[in-house]
């Protein structure tokens, strides 16, 4: 006879504990969800996690996801013969880096990585000359279609060759978003056109602050 009340008390306690845990979880979830709109364009929760890829850097050495680990990266795809969007966006990214030079993790030790989708014309040497014209610390990388696919498929990036008047006179259509990758390889945003230095600076700052706050 004395067993029954004890068991029911235990059950009641368990039920209460479960309810409290559930309520706390819900509150936390709502609180986190509620914070999301503060950072426009943030891929959260569950940002894509960058996995393995293997390109060739502008120094001729392999460039893999390991080169992105431990620092913030702004990643942009294009080609050096691109007259409008690519040089414009790289000049914008140069300004972003200058604006954030001292007061952010991206500015202090982050990197801008320009991935060429035109390996036939963009040798590592050509890429190095091109990206370092914008900023000596910008990095370039490329690879054959298979190597590029190792990265592009993870980001939903597409590109296509568009024939021109001659064999060497072609253009490339390409995804023109700037991908914001954090030091643990989470892809936290894809910033589309138009690219404006003040806007991108504000977004990257907000994303950095959000991640810092999440820890």
């Amino acid at each position: 006879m004395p067993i029954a009340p004890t068991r029911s008390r235990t059950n009641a306690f368990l039920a209460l504990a479960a309810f409290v845990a559930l309520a706390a979880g819900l509150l936390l979830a709502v609180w986190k969800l509620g914070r999301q709109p503060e950072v426009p364009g943030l891929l959260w929760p569950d940002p894509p996690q960058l996995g393995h890829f293997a390109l060739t850097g502008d120094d001729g050495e392999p460039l893999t996801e390991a080169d992105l680990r431990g620092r913030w990266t702004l990643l942009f795809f294009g080609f050096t013969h691109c007259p409008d969007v690519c040089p414009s966006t790289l000049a914008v990214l140069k300004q972003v880096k200058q604006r954030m030079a001292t007061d952010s993790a991206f500015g202090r030790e982050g990197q801008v990585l320009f991935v060429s989708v035109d390996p036939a014309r963009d040798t590592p040497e050509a890429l190095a000359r091109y990206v370092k014209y914008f900023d000596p610390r910008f990095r370039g990388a490329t690879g054959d279609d298979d190597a590029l696919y190792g990265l592009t498929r993870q980001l939903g990036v597409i590109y296509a060759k568009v024939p021109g008047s001659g064999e060497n006179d072609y253009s490339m259509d390409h995804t023109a978003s700037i991908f914001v990758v954090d030091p643990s390889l989470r892809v936290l945003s894809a910033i589309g056109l138009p690219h404006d230095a003040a806007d991108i600076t504000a977004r990257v700052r907000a994303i950095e602050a959000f991640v810092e706050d999440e820890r």
Partner: protein
Amino acid sequence: MRLALRRFAFLYVVAAGSAASACDGLAITDAWIREPPPGANAVAAYMTLANHGDETLVLDALTSPGFAHGMLHETVAQDGRVRMRHVPRLSLAPGERVQLAPGALHGMLMQPTAALPRAGEHVELVLGCSGKSTRVMAIVARDAP
């Protein structure tokens, strides 16, 4: 070539607009060309075009003596992907203004035949109207987004 362009830049202003031409009424302001990064074989030109005349203007050519080819282009962004579209003709109604700007409509000069301009230098740009007349001007190269 570059030196010559710099030295005689003022001449283009004098040469601008032949008498009673199809380009009459065309006003071009804030024209610049992007300083080409190393290795570039195509350079974009930007400007504001306005039609101050009473007739519709039709721009159908954009070239430069320092380049084998030139044309009007438009960067079209769709689903985050950009592509370039050749614009064979650009019509400006009386009073209309059109901006040629990064990421939008722009002039594209391809296959340089002379040394590429550095920031601060000028190149000659030739705009053609209705296949009949041209407007010639010197536009400055800039290191800008």
